[in-house]
């Protein structure tokens, strides 16, 4: 393996260069122009009005819904769970153990492009879901030991997953020694007990509510070109997908946790943050925990303020509906911040996965591969991709917000009512550019 990319500890020993100032400024200007162009020029009546549609593909539907497809996907998920579980519980406590890269890079980052390109495939492959379904086959009651009523489920929504996502972000960004097996094993246990254990108690629906990875993957898949229309798989316009797919309660919290978490990650890379925390006598965990919470709260509050312009926030329904418009911004942030990590550390994880126990195996024939470093030599391309992801995410988000706003705003306030949320979204995107510029 090339020594360049062997860290002595931890993942991500290299970060992207700060976004060059001219690109950051161009991005911000584009964002402003695009935002108000949408407000002034885009359609004036709801275009889709909540009704999904697209080119229905019966052949693809048959393949996707085939029993063997679903069994194969579930088997892949279970196999990965067992293989990486072996590395976690029996592997060596070194950075070459693939479990770290698998958790922090392949799962956490990789699920974004996977779900964006292939739709909600994660759900089918989710090993914890499969375990719960297998338990049901083995005689567990259909809706778990303690069935919940539909109104309760509706209220629970995605809130447990939002908590789980905040916890995983905390593990990734704050938890000391998060690159040691001892720490990761505890978190793995918590994940399995809460998600699969809860699934046994309340039925498989709990997995959808509580598994942070599934919730994240399903959220991202709402921007994919694959949507079910009348039960069949259809090729759709991602804008229509975002504006017509269901936003369960708590979606706004999931979005705030994700966007706030990524923003906090960028923020901790600024010299200002490092210097302030290091010169303080307060414990770093306290700084970081407060920082993460503050960033999530900032996103949640500003979002609520923006949505408030559209009408009353009755029981959060409006917040959840409009949360769909922040999904592309979340995806843009994730790509801009983590694509290099995925490309570089993702390759290393692939290499390490061949030898989960550190016994010199080459199970997948990848152990001897090197890391392709083309990526490192093209920092300008990285910067352009980051800019494109952030600005593109913003544009999609603004268009979705426009469509959803037209649905809820009374005829007289259709333009003005959108302005607060638009301003908030411009703030998110320019904030994202500023963090990439990384003062």
């Amino acid at each position, binding site marked *: 393996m090339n*020594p*360049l990319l*062997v*860290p*002595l500890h931890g993942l991500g*020993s*290299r*970060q*992207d*260069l*700060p976004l060059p*100032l001219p690109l950051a400024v161009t991005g911000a200007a584009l964002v402003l122009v695009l935002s108000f162009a949408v407000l002034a020029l885009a359609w004036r009546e709801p275009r889709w009005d909540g009704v999904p549609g697209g080119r229905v593909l019966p052949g693809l539907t048959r393949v996707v819904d085939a029993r063997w497809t679903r069994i194969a996907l579930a088997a892949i998920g279970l196999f990965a769970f067992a293989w990486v579980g072996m590395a976690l519980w029996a592997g060596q406590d070194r950075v070459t153990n693939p479990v770290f890269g698998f958790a922090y890079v392949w799962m956490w980052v990789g699920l974004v492009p996977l779900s964006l390109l292939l739709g909600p495939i994660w759900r089918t492959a989710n090993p914890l879901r499969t375990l719960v379904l297998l338990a049901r086959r083995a005689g567990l009651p259909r809706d778990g030991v303690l069935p919940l009523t539909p109104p309760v489920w509706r209220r629970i929504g995605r809130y447990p997953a939002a908590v789980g996502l905040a916890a995983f972000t905390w593990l990734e960004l704050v938890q000391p020694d998060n690159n040691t097996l001892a720490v990761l094993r505890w978190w793995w246990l918590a994940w399995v007990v809460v998600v699969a254990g809860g699934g046994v108690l309340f039925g498989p629906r709990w997995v959808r509510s509580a598994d942070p990875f599934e919730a994240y993957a399903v959220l991202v898949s709402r921007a994919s070109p694959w949507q079910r229309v009348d039960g069949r798989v259809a090729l759709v316009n991602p804008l229509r997908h975002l504006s017509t797919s269901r936003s369960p309660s708590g979606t706004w919290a999931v979005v705030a946790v994700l966007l706030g978490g990524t923003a906090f990650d960028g923020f901790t*890379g600024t*010299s200002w943050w*490092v*210097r302030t925390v*290091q*010169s303080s006598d307060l414990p770093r965990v306290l700084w970081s925990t407060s920082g993460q919470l503050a960033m999530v709260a900032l996103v949640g509050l500003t979002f609520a303020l923006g949505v408030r312009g559209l009408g009353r926030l009755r029981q959060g329904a409006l917040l959840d509906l409009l949360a769909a418009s922040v999904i592309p911004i979340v995806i843009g942030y994730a790509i801009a911040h983590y694509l290099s990590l995925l490309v570089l550390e993702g390759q290393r994880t692939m290499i390490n996965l061949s030898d989960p126990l550190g016994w010199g195996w080459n199970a997948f024939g990848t152990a001897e591969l090197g890391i392709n470093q083309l990526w*490192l*030599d093209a*920092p300008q391309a990285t910067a352009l991709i980051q800019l494109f992801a952030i600005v593109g995410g913003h544009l999609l988000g603004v268009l979705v917000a426009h469509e959803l706003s037209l649905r809820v705003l009374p005829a007289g306030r259709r333009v003005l009512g959108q302005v607060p949320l638009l301003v908030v979204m411009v703030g998110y995107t320019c904030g994202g550019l500023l963090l990439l*510029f*990384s*003062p």
Partner: protein
Amino acid sequence: MRKTIGSLLAALLLVGCATTQEAAPSSTVAPPAMATSPATSATPAEPARTVIRITLADGKVEPNGQRVELARGSVLELVITSDREDAVHVHGFDLEIPVTPGASVTKDITLDRVGRFEIESHEPVFTILQLVVS
């Protein structure tokens, strides 16, 4: 941006290092505390050189997380003094420089790769510098 220039200036002042980033042959103006400039015998082929002094003392580090922006291909010379057993870890370059109390360690690093890298101490963990190579 002004901020970048500002932080670079701050780094220059606080770190007590002098930088020359021109492609032309260059030498380092040694800060007062340093006895000699290492690049006195500069030849046209010699890359730009930056000297940064690092002090690990009283459980703290100096510089304290400053950012330095350097050109790819230039050389960074670290001069480290410590009052404790520790190691200075240059992330991304796979370099761990052991330090012992009292002795001063000098290390040349050829900045042959682009990116943002942390230079940190491990016991306890401090980010000493954010090294930006472009």
